[in-house]
Each structure stands twice: as structure tokens, then as C-alpha cells.
């Protein structure tokens, strides 16, 4: 029995003998601390798909950086950051000054942005480069990338702590917040900024397409386990970390690409939670305990 356990343990820890796996783990854990809480707010604001759109919007910036400097982390990060923030701001601005709703204006801008990005990448470079940008390189994180991930994670946690109350009020009752304070607008834009920053961070590790996965899947999964906001955020971080570790281990043993492995584990945890989660899970709905007296 203990042999089986120690074998499992060795299997789980073995991959992390290697430096590149340890780096990948640190990077993914940093991301797991910051991206899922952002995802919780996105989900609660019914903006889940907005992060998907934003992740596409980042592409042309990263591509522009790639065109200028090749596969250079700072250039691609900066480009992605600028493109993401510009699209987020433009979409917000168009929403405030015209009759268009935010999701529609965002869709318009990210489609323009995505097409531009694909065009830019195909101007130079091969299919492999495009795949690299789309699916990331978690096994090739250098020091600079780790600093970036850690920095973004720290920044996100501080910003969420500072913005927490206005952000919650803006989610629950934006009209009320407008009547008592002008903090709603700045809080909203700061939050959009955090979304972009975290997607850029995720794009380092997982690529633009899968960055959204680590942001949203743990958050949506948490909905089946926790009832209040604090619980949701805590659970989402836990699920994010779980998916990161399990995904990396699996990708090592089964020789799978690590980005998709992490997101697929997160997806698997979501499916299991959907079935077995105590809050609105499928099994719970089928087997109902008798109602209370009052």
C-alpha cells in the first residue's frame, strides 16, 4: 500500500526534479493566484465571454512585437498589453458615448484586432511561430517571464484588495454606486485593465487562447462549491492551482503539450464539479434531501 503511495508521490513530484518544470510550476501557480479571482468577477458580471474576446484582442499587439523583435518576451508582452488596453478602453468609451452595448462594441473591436493579428503574424514567420503565440510556452519560462508573472500576480491581488468594495457594488447595484460615488467608472476601467494584464500573463505561459481557460474554468467550477464571494475566490484559486500542478505532471508523463493539458484538467474538474458539486450540481438536484420545516 505504502509502495503504491510512494510510487504515486514519486510520479507527482518526479517531474519537478527538472528546472524547467519547477519554473513552469512557479509560473502557473503565480497565475493561479491572480487569474481565477478575476474570472470570478467576470463570471458574476456575466462578462465571461468578454475575456475570450480580450484574449483575441491581445494577439495583434503580441504579433507586432514579434514582427519587430522576433520571439522576444518583452516586446511581445508590451505589444499585447498595449493592444489589450486599447481595445478595452475603446470598447468602454464607445459604450459610454454611443448607444452600443459593451459586448457588441467589444466584439467589433476584437474581431478587427484578431484579423489584424493573424495578418501580421503571417507576414513574417511560419505556422510554428503562430502556434507558439497561440498556445504559449510554459516549459520555456525564463527569469524575465517568471518575474513578469509574479509581478502581475502581486499587482492583481493588491488592486483587487483596493477595488474590492466598489467593484462588488458596481457588480450588484451600479445605479446605487453612481448615486453615492464616482468610483464606479474608475473601478470598472481598472478591472478591465486587470483582465488584460492577467491575459497577457497567461499568454506567456499558456498562449492567448488558453489563458482564458485558467481564468474562467476555475471560477466557473467554484460556483458549484461555494456560496459567498470570499468562498468563490478561495475555491477558484484552489482549483486553478490544482489544474496547474496536475496538468504539468500529466503533460510530463504522457508527453502532452503542457498548456492544453492544464486547461483540460481544469475542464475535467469543472465537469466533475458540475456532476457532484454541492451547490446546484446535477447529482444534488437529482437526490434532493427533504425540505426543512421553515
Amino acid at each position, binding site marked *: 500500500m505504502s509502495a503504491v503511495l510512494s510510487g504515486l508521490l514519486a510520479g507527482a513530484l518526479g517531474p519537478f526534479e527538472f528546472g524547467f518544470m519547477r519554473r513552469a510550476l512557479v509560473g502557473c501557480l503565480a497565475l493561479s493566484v491572480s487569474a481565477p479571482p478575476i474570472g470570478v468577477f467576470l463570471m*458574476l458580471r456575466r462578462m465571461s465571454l468578454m475575456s475570450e474576446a480580450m484574449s483575441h484582442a491581445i494577439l495583434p499587439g503580441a504579433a507586432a512585437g514579434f514582427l519587430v523583435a522576433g520571439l522576444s518576451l518583452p516586446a511581445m508582452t508590451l505589444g499585447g498589453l498595449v493592444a489589450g488596453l486599447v481595445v478595452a478602453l475603446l470598447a468602454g468609451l464607445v459604450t459610454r458615448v454611443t448607444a452600443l452595448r459593451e459586448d457588441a462594441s467589444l466584439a467589433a473591436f476584437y474581431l478587427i484586432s484578431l484579423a489584424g493579428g493573424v495578418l501580421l503574424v503571417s507576414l513574417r514567420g511560419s505556422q510554428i511561430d503562430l502556434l507558439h503565440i497561440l498556445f504559449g510556452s510554459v516549459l520555456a519560462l525564463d527569469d524575465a517571464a517568471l518575474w513578469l508573472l509574479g509581478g502581475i500576480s502581486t499587482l492583481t491581488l493588491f488592486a483587487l484588495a483596493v477595488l474590492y468594495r466598489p467593484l462588488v457594488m458596481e*457588480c*450588484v447595484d451600479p*445605479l*446605487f454606486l453612481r*448615486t*453615492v*460615488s464616482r*468610483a464606479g467608472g474608475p473601478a470598472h476601467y481598472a478591472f478591465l485593465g486587470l483582465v488584460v494584464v492577467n491575459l497577457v500573463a497567461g499568454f506567456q505561459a499558456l498562449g492567448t487562447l488558453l489563458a482564458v481557460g485558467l481564468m474562467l474554468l476555475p471560477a466557473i467550477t467554484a460556483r458549484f462549491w461555494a456560496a459567498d464571494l470570499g468562498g468563490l475566490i478561495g475555491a477558484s484559486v484552489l482549483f486553478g492551482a490544482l489544474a496547474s500542478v496536475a496538468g504539468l505532471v500529466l503533460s510530463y508523463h504522457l508527453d502532452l503539450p503542457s498548456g492544453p493539458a492544464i486547461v483540460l484538467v481544469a475542464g475535467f474538474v469543472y465537469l466533475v464539479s458540475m456532476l457532484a458539486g454541492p451547490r446546484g450540481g446535477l447529482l444534488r438536484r437529482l437526490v434532493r434531501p427533504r425540505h426543512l420545516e421553515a
Partner: protein
Amino acid sequence: MSGGLHPPAPGALRLAGLTLGYDRHPAVHHLDGTIPAGDLLALVGPNGAGKSTLLKGLVGEIPCLEGAVLRGVPREAVAYLPQADEIDRSFPLSVLDLVGMGLWRWAGPWRSLGRRRGRVLEALAAVGLSGFEERGIGTLSGGQFQRALFARLILQDAAVILLDEPFTGIDARTLQDLLALIARWHGQGRTVVAALHDLDQVRAHFPSTLLLAREPVAWGPTRQVLTAANLARAARLSEAWDENAAVCARGPAGEAGHHHHGSGPTLVHGGQDHHDHAHHGHGHRHGDAA
């Protein structure tokens, strides 16, 4: 020449040639007058008369097409209960946290609400929601939710309170409780403006009334405003939306705003302190026009 653009007395609201609307179509037209501090004013009129629009304008939620709202208090000291709230009731938030939002002016974004927990519980008790503090807002019934919103209003401790049809879908007992709460606010000297439909309720509980039909029809003591003649005129005046309406020929606030003889308001200068000194010129010239 007009009542002047200096702010009215603390707690009062002055409407100076106020026109509010959407897409240039006015929903409230050239409204002049002062809601004195401590007034308990009912806003009455047919559907589409501009009651909600006026309240939104008073709180600053929509911009004025013309004219201005002058508040005798900072904008943040005006509490507003909208008719169709934008509250996301599926959000995982407790009743305590929802009601605690009313403390924003004191707490701001960072101060802990822990020290004022007693106040929040008191406010909940005042609206009959003791014991509900840990419940999620999604589990409340419509009436209970309205009570919670009134508890939040209590905590806001505002000098001016605007209520947009606060009793829609409310049972009789809740209604009595909320009316008693409003009477208490009135007793504390707060200015309360409520858009209402039930005229008997208005007659029984609201000393003054503004009868609105996109223009003020009558404004003054409730008994003198809610006459059959005025109500009939209000019904006639609430005309349909005209997509091709001409540009309004009346000048900006305070200039030509008083020349609309045809449909001018009946200002009832009863025992009401309706035009306090700050408002003098205004009310009288309006009386002349009518």
C-alpha cells in the same frame, strides 16, 4: 431676474426651467419651482407623465436638456430608490452587505463596516427584517427586498430622499410599515419626494403634491392639487410621443420659460411654504403666467 442660480436653502431642491428627456424629446418640460426643505411631496401623473424622469433628473442620473436642478445638498446626500433597480439579485451577497452599502458616505471604499454593524442591524430591525442579515439577497421575496432597500436608505441618512413608485407589488402590512418610515423621515425634517399612483394614499399621507403631465399641471397642498379638474387636465396633456416634433420655440431657462400661457401650471399658493424666499420671483411670475 429669475430665482437666481445661487443654491437653494439646505435640503431644498430648485428646478430652474428644467427640461428633461431622451433623444431631444422632452419627458418633462420647462419645470420651475422649489421643493422646500422638509417637504413630503407626492409626484402624481398619468403613465408617461415624466415622474420617473424627473426623479432621475433630480438625482443627476440623466443630464438636463435645458435648465438646471439646483440642490441645497451635495449630490451624494441625495438618496434615490429607483423603480426598476439594476440590482443583480443572483449575486452572492448577504442582506447585511447589501444594506451596509448605505454606509458608503461614512465608510468609503476601505473602512471596515464592522464597527457599524449595530447600525445595520438596527436599520434591518426598523424595516422588520431582523434575522435576515445572513440570508443571500437572492432568497428574499419582492416585498422583503423592498424592505431591505428601505433599510439601506435609512443608513444613507440622506437629507433628500427620492422614491420612485416604492410601493409597487407590496402587501398591505409592508405598505403600512414603509409609510410609517416615510412619516418618520418627514418628522426628522428630511425632504422626501415620492412618485405614486394611488391617489387615496397620497391624500392620506402626503401634505403636498406635484401633478405632472410632462408639464406641471398643479403644485401645492395635496387637497387643492388633486381636484377632478386638474386630474382631467393632466390626462389630456399627457400626449403621445411625436417622432417629428418641432424644435421647442421656448427659450432657455429663466428667459422665455414663462410664456407658455396655453398649458401653464396652476400653482396653488395655499398655506404651503411652497415658495420660500429664495424662490420668490419665480413662483410669483409663474403665478402670473398661469
